[in-house]
């Protein structure tokens, strides 16, 4: 199933990376450290008058490694900063802090054309991501010529090959985007991204704008392409079902930070961050046990409340405002991504991620204070797995 081990070598660069846990011992292909991206919101003039910059910290210090050949998912709700991070990694959004390394080399703020080519993107909305005035052939020809991907005599043949690869006929070359359905447009967008023979394909919600039955064809296509071309895939999605189907590893984002990273199976079977647990519990499912689950009146929501605005990030742990197990320490100390002893692959940014039970002392204290027979403060166990 995984093609991760398919490309063992790659050009070995001499630099030993000091970046934290990769998947295995090999150096990561793409590595972000301390990446932060923020926007100024509101009018610049108003900000200048008030002598303040209204900074929205969309991505707020992210460390992330992407190994060659792996498929990594970046999961989170809207406002979590996942798309912004993807754009930053693809070099389409300037980074305020931190650095992005490709093959061990720090990428400059303005990337060269050759660097740009290495990371290609597929966007969410296939209706806005294709230029309505260009034919598919025109679109591909331009990229191929600018980058001299193939000799100019072979451009046409290579374009046809690309279209066949994504499951479109060669006659699509002369068609305009408006002549395609949504799914076909997304295939064109994938062909365009693959045209430059990138090392990394960043797909930002590639199926969420498509109908269910069409989603499956695109997901299968991405999976097959990965196997066939040995692509490294960074999938941005809010849909954990899609992620589980396609990816080897998952990073969960919340309010500009990564709160948990783990191999896919591990994340789904043994989530450690309370947000991940809630996210998993909130997914509607088709399994037998799930029917009318919601109708059971006694159960509370998987995660209560709303995500705070990125303009007003809570002090301490940023999830504490919605966290069922929040304690005093969560309001004062910002938890870093930590790993369980001996397992660098699974990391979570929660004070109580790898402690067996929620802080026993704190619970005990509250039990003592509460009237007998009531056990407050015990987190709702909402994990269907057990």
């Amino acid at each position, binding site marked *: 199933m995984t093609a991760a081990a398919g490309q063992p070598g790659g050009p070995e660069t001499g630099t030993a990376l000091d970046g934290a846990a990769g998947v295995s011992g090999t150096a990561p292909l793409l590595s972000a450290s301390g990446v932060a991206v923020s926007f100024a919101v509101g009018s610049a003039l108003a900000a200048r008058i008030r002598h303040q910059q209204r900074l929205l910290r969309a991505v707020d210090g992210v460390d992330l490694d992407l190994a060659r050949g792996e498929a990594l998912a970046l999961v989170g*709700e809207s406002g979590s900063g996942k798309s912004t991070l993807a754009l930053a990694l693809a070099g389409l959004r300037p980074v305020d802090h931190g650095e992005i390394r490709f093959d061990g080399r720090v990428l400059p703020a303005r990337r060269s054309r050759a660097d740009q080519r290495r990371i290609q993107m597929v966007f969410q909305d296939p209706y806005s991501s294709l230029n309505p005035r260009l034919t598919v052939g025109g679109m591909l020809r331009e990229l191929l010529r600018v980058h001299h991907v193939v000799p100019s005599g072979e451009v046409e043949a290579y374009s046809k090959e690309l279209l066949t690869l994504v499951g479109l006929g060669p006659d699509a070359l002369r068609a305009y985007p408006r002549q395609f359905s949504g799914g076909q447009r997304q295939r064109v967008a994938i062909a365009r991204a693959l045209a430059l023979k990138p090392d990394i394909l960043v797909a930002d919600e590639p199926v969420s704008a498509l109908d269910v*039955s069409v989603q499956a064809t695109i997901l299968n296509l991405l999976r097959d392409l990965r196997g066939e071309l040995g692509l490294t895939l960074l999938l941005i999605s*809010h849909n954990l079902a899609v992620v589980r189907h396609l990816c080897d590893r998952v990073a969960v984002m919340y309010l500009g930070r990564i709160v948990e990273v783990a191999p896919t199976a591990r994340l789904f079977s043994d989530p450690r961050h309370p947000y991940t647990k809630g996210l998993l519990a*909130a997914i*509607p*499912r088709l399994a037998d046990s799930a029917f009318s689950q919601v109708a059971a009146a006694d159960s509370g929501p998987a995660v209560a409340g709303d995500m705070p605005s990125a303009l007003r990030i809570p002090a301490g742990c940023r999830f504490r405002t919605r966290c069922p197990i929040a304690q005093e320490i969560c309001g004062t100390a910002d938890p870093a991504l930590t790993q369980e002893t001996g397992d660098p692959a699974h990391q979570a940014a929660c004070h109580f991620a790898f402690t067996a039970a929620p802080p026993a002392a704190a619970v005990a204290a509250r039990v003592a204070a509460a009237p007998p027979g009531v056990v407050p403060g015990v987190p709702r166990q909402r994990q269907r797995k057990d």
Partner: protein
Amino acid sequence: MSEMSFTKSSGAAQPAAGPVLEVSDLHVQIAARHGTVRAVDGVSLEVAGGEALGLVGESGSGKSMTLRAILGVLPPEARITSGQIVLDGVDLVPLSNSDLNRIRGPKMSMIFQEPMSALNPVMRVGHQIAEGPRVHLGYGRSKAAERALDLMRRVGIPDPERRFRAYPHEFSGGMRQRVMIAIALSCDPEIILCDEPTTALDVTIQDQILRLLARLCAESGVSLIFVTHDLPVVAQLCQRVAVMYGGQLVETGDVRAVLLDPRHPYTLGLVRSAPDVEYVRDSLVPIPGSPPSLVTPPSGCRFHPRCEFAEEDCKVLPTPLRVLPGGRSTACLHYERCQDAVAADRVGP
């Protein structure tokens, strides 16, 4: 409203209490430049009191058009050409717009996908909720405001006294949808029509809204028609489900029966093509081909060009819904094959 009615699993026949809403043989046509689009083509539905009916289909299946026809808010180029929509014993089809206005609100209301565009951006949220009771129930200013506050509490808007005077843009997406629900509930309707109300929301917020809707259904006995393309959402909330394809119903029945053990290849296709968190397959099974043209629909069964079980007779014979044992019905002539395929799927993984 009896609280027990929604627990009945067989929805086809409701001997005790008649259905709240009964749609029979509804046809909606849209005049378009390239011909007449038969957007809804002979749809019959029943919704019992306190029941949540899921109406499932892909874009262009006619599910939203059905909902709009029931509410009487079709786009100007569309019209109901035949059929009946009976709500509480009254046929809505021949009613004038002003008559419908007396029914929309106290009898039925709607929740939209995009609460931001459905809410008035320059009117205080509390006043928007209080508007219905003032117009339809003849409440005075203070009584309506009291009701609005009560509704805000019921739909889980924290700090309602302060939020009453806020504007929609000060609310998050989930809170706006709660406001929409409060507005929909404000005149105690018999039925609420929901058009993909959770599609634009994040999964944790969707979970909150689904739980809220389920609770309101159980508490107040209001019925729901829940239009969505998302099968798992239907599984969580609804008791019965109706699947639409190409403007027609292809399968109806108890939600568990239809989604776990489909008797129509299109339903089977939808279930198989959707990725599921619990069940990871080597490869998803998409439905080949593309949706049918509604101007010149395929003859016979509309799904036959994409169907793996299609036979010669599927291309010619009409495929009305046929009742199967267990209160369910299917439009498929060869539904046994689905049964076999489902059984094979079970054995597989």
